[in-house]
């Protein structure tokens, strides 16, 4: 029987929420790694029982945990993330040079083809790869060293590489996004990289159309058409039809085009979801109403999805890695909030219900659709 497993990373541990394909009744397990920040968990598409988790604290640093039984038990694997060579400097908040320093792993991206291979996006921004199921890590330093690195600067959350997408049709093509450097693409498996930020426009930059420096919050695509990318930038929702070579704004009628999360319906490549947030200084929904917005036209025309979501006095945030979809026949959509709620819709967003209400602040949500 089909089912789903929702992997939730929070400020104080990880939680695993499971249900059958009806998605009405949920089993909640956790916290795993209680008291630690779990920036991200993600399962292998090849072996769904293999799940990786990024576990960290400011006190004791970074660990990577791996489960080979669907999250029942965990074993720590390798946690040595060493930059290739002498890493040099990037810009600090005040514009002065600052040495590259490893802080944490923001995102883990297991391979679509090999259960032992995965990528890790880290702060300070860099991309690492493991080919031994997390035991050892090697930096793909062509990204950090492609030329613009010294001008990258941190966003409010740190200089993090938070988005990793490997094209489902071409394993050599990788997209990443960094706050606040922008989006980058490799067409040779991660050896060489180039910025893909043409068309982005960011007030606050000396050159508002600069090659890098844009605070990209999240990128998503649909597997059937990996040349079409959707982006939630700091401000602006953007779309590219040419794998990032150029972008156009599709914010349309959104009540705010600031936000973090963005995702695409599992079966409808032009159906996109965002959660508008008031502004970069007010990280909560406009008017205190928690609304997911859905576009069925690839952007520009958006409809609010409110049924089952709080429509008054709601002042939570939805962070960049905290939205995901399942691939059941009727697409499920899930997101977590900084207030500790995880909401699920089993009808593509038409209505919502909380799976849990009182977790620690949710940092990430991933979904596994189980056969």
């Amino acid at each position, binding site marked *: 029987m089909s089912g789903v497993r929702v992997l939730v990373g929070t400020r104080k541990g990880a939680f695993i929420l499971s249900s059958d394909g009806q998605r009405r009744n949920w089993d909640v397990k956790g916290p795993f790694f209680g*008291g*630690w920040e779990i920036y991200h968990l993600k399962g292998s598409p090849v072996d769904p029982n293999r799940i990786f988790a990024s576990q960290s*604290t*400011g*006190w*004791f*640093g*970074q*660990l990577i945990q791996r489960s080979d039984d669907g999250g029942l038990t965990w074993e*720590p694997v390798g*946690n*040595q993330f*060493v930059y290739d060579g002498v890493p040099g400097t990037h810009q600090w908040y005040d514009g002065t040079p600052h040495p590259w320093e490893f802080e944490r792993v923001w995102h883990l991206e297991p391979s679509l083809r090999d259960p032992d291979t995965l990528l890790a996006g880290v702060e300070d921004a860099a991309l690492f790869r493991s080919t031994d199921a997390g035991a050892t890590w090697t930096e793909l330093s062509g990204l950090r060293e492609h030329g613009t690195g010294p001008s990258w600067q941190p966003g409010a959350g740190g200089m993090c590489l938070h988005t990793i997408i490997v094209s489902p049709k071409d394993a050599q093509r990788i997209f990443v996004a960094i706050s606040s450097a922008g989006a980058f693409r490799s067409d040779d498996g991660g050896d060489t990289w180039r910025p893909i930020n043409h068309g982005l426009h960011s007030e606050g930059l000396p050159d508002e159309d600069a090659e890098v420096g844009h605070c990209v919050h999240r990128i998503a695509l649909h597997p059937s058409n990996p040349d079409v990318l959707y982006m939630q930038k700091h401000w602006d929702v953007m779309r590219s039809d040419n794998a990032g070579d150029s972008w156009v704004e599709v914010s349309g009628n959104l009540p705010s085009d600031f936000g973090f999360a963005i995702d695409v319906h599992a079966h409808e490549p032009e159906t996109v979801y965002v959660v508008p947030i008031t502004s970069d200084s007010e990280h909560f929904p406009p008017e205190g109403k928690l609304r997911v917005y859905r576009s069925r036209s690839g952007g520009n025309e958006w409809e609010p999805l409110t049924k089952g979501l709080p429509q008054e006095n709601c002042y939570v945030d939805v962070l960049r890695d905290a939205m995901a979809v399942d691939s059941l026949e009727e697409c499920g959509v899930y997101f977590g909030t900084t207030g500790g709620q995880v909401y699920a819709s089993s009808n593509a967003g038409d209505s919502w219900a909380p799976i849990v209400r009182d977790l620690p602040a949710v940092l990430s949500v991933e979904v596994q659709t189980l056969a």
Partner: protein
Amino acid sequence: MIRVVLPAHLKTLARVKGEVELEVDGAPTPRTIIDALERRYPVLLGTIRDPRTQERRKFVRFYACEEDLSLESLDVALPEAVVRGSEPFFVIGAMAGG
């Protein structure tokens, strides 16, 4: 035999309860104690000190016999009571965060 008290999170990682008792190579110092800890509990690699620079993580402190040894050299000789095992060596997560 050196007695070591770990903070709660590191006890969980190492899957130990209570104090840890260690034999260290050479003279007991913060460095030889951490060396012995990491040998017995590889999961602690990187949690107490940077594995490359060997520097103590900034929110980790070392105490012994009511003294803060955090700013001493990692090779400082430890008090006799720690060497004898009558007092433990404490690895502490710094009080921070409110």
